């Protein structure tokens, strides 16, 4: 068995990629930097209707857009064949191309009540630029979704660091980067077992840091004017990193998915005064007034409520039909009907609908917005935007939210966001209008560099044989001294990999889908976050499968590492 085959995935799937790209950093040097795309319907910006014509790209920039463009001698001609071309999409915030860091080696805080800033997750001085890797597969995932520019921020807790604007193609961090240190990222995510551990800790720490930065700026400026009699300013790197925020020249991108967290972020903004962009927002309509008065930017999350399975809907239809002819299946109907459950289902449906409508509500309120990709996935961009359009968002606003709006929020609309002459040649080409359900992306140009999307035939991958057969329902037992020390893991096969779900220890019906998992031969490892009373803990699992059983380790936060063993109870993972 070959064990070096490693699949690292950004989605919850352990997958073997079925789509590959014509270009990557290993390909030979390009013949030309000039491309003429002919015979395409051009949507140069969302406000104009498409025109038929050609686009000329030279040296990574858009050189000419028009009905009749002459081909220069050195141009490679791409026949658009009546396809559709749009400005390249913009990811307004994500962790794309950010190297995963090992948190395991972090020392324990000696004084959890007053830990060093870096341990406490307070690192506004860090730069996403210094954490970029052009090898990260997330770059490819973004390109596949038509995204040419990403605003990337470091991972972490309360203040992970500065964001950078990058292209989704480039063979080094320098080549990827368009602008560095353009923003500060923040989240309501406490440190593990040290201050600030909870929401109230994060809020208090923000207030204190900000006041300290305000005082420090004054001190530095006084000292620079006349140092006589003043103590030398202490060059605190975290506070200095906040100076542009205090000066209101750098925006804080605050992750605030829930209504409650939107209000919390806005109350900090109101009390302290920094410019803010609410990020990864899932529900916004109950906080519109304050968002408007704060002039806050909004980035919607691409994580939408799970789609109702069509099967269930069908069943319901059958039920309704059954009610009409009151013969036959009356008995069965009675058995299925639980008014309390139905009422709950109804409210859940209303809630799902409300979440899908958020984008259209922003449109109706004239609040420009973009999309962020922290909890959602790049490949969900078009499918989920389509769901938003079904729920009332106009196609024009949808395209804006993927192009010019985020460009403006990020302050880069002079270099991207539309197909204007002189802007970076970021383009997306599709065989049908972009929001058509059957649309396939055909080309993505990143800074004039063409990526041809080709679907390869599915072939029996070697890795299918290498990877252990782990499908089924597994029960496990942890060697942890606590009452509930057993649980269930469900692993199912999907179209392009495996889907892993783990049940809560105290509620065996509450499953969580695993975000990042690695399957390496018969070794499966993954981790997930638990949230309780505002304290977040990361739990890691490392399992070695052998036939019908596995053994391995579980690492709950900083509590240490414990043994875990499991057995396959069924070859078929149950739905719930």
């Amino acid at each position, binding site marked *: 068995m070959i064990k070096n085959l490693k699949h690292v995935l950004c989605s919850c799937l352990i997958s073997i990629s079925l789509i590959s790209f014509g270009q990557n950093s290993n390909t030979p040097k390009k013949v030309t930097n000039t491309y003429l795309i002919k015979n395409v319907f051009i949507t140069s910006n969302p406000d104009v209707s498409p025109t038929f014509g050609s686009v000329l790209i030279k040296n990574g920039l858009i050189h000419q857009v028009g009905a009749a463009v002459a081909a220069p001698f050195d141009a490679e001609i791409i026949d658009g064949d009546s396809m559709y071309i749009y400005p390249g999409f913009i990811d307004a915030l994500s962790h794309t191309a950010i190297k995963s860091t090992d948190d395991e080696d972090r020392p324990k805080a000696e004084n959890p*009540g*007053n830990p060093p800033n870096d341990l406490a997750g307070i690192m506004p001085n860090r730069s996403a630029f210094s954490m970029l890797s052009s090898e990260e597969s997330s770059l490819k995932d973004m390109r596949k979704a038509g995204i040419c520019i990403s605003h990337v921020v470091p991972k972490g807790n309360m203040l992970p660091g500065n964001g950078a604007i990058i292209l989704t193609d480039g063979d080094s961090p320098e080549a990827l980067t368009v602008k560095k240190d353009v923003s500060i990222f923040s989240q309501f995510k406490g440190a593990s077992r*040290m*201050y*600030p*551990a*909870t*929401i*109230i*800790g994060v*809020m*208090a720490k923000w*207030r*204190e840091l900000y*006041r*300290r930065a305000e*005082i420090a700026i*004054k*001190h530095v400026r006084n000292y620079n004017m006349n140092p006589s*009699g*003043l*103590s030398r300013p202490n060059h605190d790197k975290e506070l200095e990193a906040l100076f542009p925020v205090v000066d209101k020249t750098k925006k804080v991108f605050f992750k605030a998915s829930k209504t*409650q967290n939107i*209000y*919390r972020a806005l*109350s900090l903004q109101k009390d302290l005064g920094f410019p803010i962009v609410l990020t990864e927002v899932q529900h916004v309509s*109950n*906080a519109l007034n*304050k968002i408007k008065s704060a002039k806050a930017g909004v980035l919607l999350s691409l994580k939408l*409520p*799970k789609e109702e399975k069509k099967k269930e809907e069908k069943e319901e239809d059958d039920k309704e039909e059954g009610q009409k002819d009151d013969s036959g299946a009356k008995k069965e109907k009675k058995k299925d009907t*639980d008014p309390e*459950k139905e*009422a*709950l*289902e109804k*409210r*859940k449906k*209303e*809630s*799902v609908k409300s*979440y899908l409508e958020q984008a259209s509500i922003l449109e109706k309120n004239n609040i420009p917005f973009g999309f962020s990709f922290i909890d959602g996935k790049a490949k969900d961009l078009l499918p989920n935007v389509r769901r938003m359009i079904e729920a009332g968002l106009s196609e024009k606003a949808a395209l804006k939210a993927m192009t010019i709006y985020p460009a403006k929020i990020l302050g880069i609309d002079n270099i991207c966001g539309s197909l204007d002459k002189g802007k970076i040649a970021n383009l997306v080409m599709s065989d049908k209008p972009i929001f058509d359900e059957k649309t396939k992306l055909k080309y993505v140009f990143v800074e004039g560099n063409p990526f041809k999307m080709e679907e390869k035939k599915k072939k029996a991958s070697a890795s299918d044989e290498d990877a252990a057969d782990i499908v089924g329902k597994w029960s496990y037992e942890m060697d*942890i001294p606590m009452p*509930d020390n057993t649980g269930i893991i469900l692993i199912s096969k999907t179209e392009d990999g495996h889907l892993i779900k*783990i049940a*809560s*220890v*105290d*509620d065996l*019906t*509450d499953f*969580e889908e695993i975000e990042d998992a690695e399957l390496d031969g018969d070794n499966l490892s993954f981790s997930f976050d*638990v*949230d*309780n*009373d*505002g*304290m977040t803990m990361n739990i890691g699992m490392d399992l070695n499968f052998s036939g019908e059983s596995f053994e391995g380790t579980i690492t*709950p936060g900083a*509590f240490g590492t414990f043994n875990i063993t499991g057995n396959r109870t069924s070859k078929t993972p149950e739905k719930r």
Partner: protein
Amino acid sequence: MKNKYSAIIFFLMLALGLHSQDVLIKNGTLLTITDGVKENTDLLIRNGKIDQIAKGLKASAGIEVIDAQGMFVMPGIIDAHSHLGIDAVNEATDPNTAMVWVGDALNPYDVGIYRALAGGVTISHAMHGSANAVGGQCETIKHRWGVHDPDELRMEGAPRTIKFALGENPMRVHGEGRRITPRTRMGVEQVFRKSFADAQVYMENWNQFNSGKIKSPPQYDLKMETMADILKGEILIHCHSYRADELLMLLNVLSDYGVKNITFQHVNEGFKVAPELAEFGAHASVFSDWWAYKFEVYYSTAYNAAILTKNGVVTSINSDSRELIRHLYHEAAKTQKYGDLSDNEALRLITINPAIQLGIDKRVGSLEKGKEGDVAIFKNHPLSIYAVPQKTIVDGVVRFDIDADPDDIRIDVDPNETIPAYIETQSQNAKGCSDGCMQGVHEILGHKH
């Protein structure tokens, strides 16, 4: 059918935030608390404030009229110790976390707020937990169920309060858990003394800077800012406490630092030192008859509230629980069985007295002209075992109505929730945490969201 219809309208009104703040309550038996019992009397609330208390008031056009014939009308019940409506209770990372504030974690969607309304409670004191000797700052909230903005849940202008804690909780979390001070009851005292002493130095440093005696700014410290505000008398202390010796210890500490505002919470041995508490002007907020849930709470009595009251200590009865808060009127009634308090004395324990302890007695806690329109209407006397809350009104808005009480009152529904939802409730109950104050402290090894 009629009920169902009114429930829908009620719910829609909540959802849309359409509220008139005018209401006329006709012909009720008014338990005013500060001005006796008034039978067959009307109470008019206009613009959210009590406008008139008299017989035979006429309703102006369009005003909502509630017929309270045969009903008892009392001021909205106030709970001086709860943890409702907040998403974080304990920042258990240091023996002194004076800088944190639960008002930063308000959650108007906590359905416990509505359930408290169903028990006639209009105001509660959302407190930080008792993991630390000096806990975080608390928030007095009005139960305006239906709002989305946390700012609308706050009782604007209510004085700032802070949680202190004596005894085993801070000793367990920091002494046993982390091997640091406080490991003993003596250590808890030293946390207070050191914090106050540090705050004095801190204030002095800033005074020197502000008056120009020193030119370089001292370091800004939110914890010390808060301690300084306590020293200045701007923050009321609410202290988790049980044992008599520790009550006296804290009184000594406060005397030494000139701090006057203190309400002892739980204070199960308060009856032993009631005269001393009265002399200091300390207040007490107690359980009616709940003790023996840990070693330091073994010595207690159901006569505690009565003894404290008879000794002149401003006393209240609190819930510290999502369940007890729904029948604080029963809890108050127990002082009539244990201690023979009069009706008015018993009702004071859940109205004006907690209002005094929270520094809001000029605004709420009794039915008086000019006070805020917070009212609970009961079928049968609230101190009767047959009492059933009918309507609960906050600032002139009916926020609970037993005739329009939908099965599912939630505002915020998780679009990914598991149905049936009762499984979740069961597992929550199974956790069986006896002490609401210690939320978030127990090690989390399950992976529940």
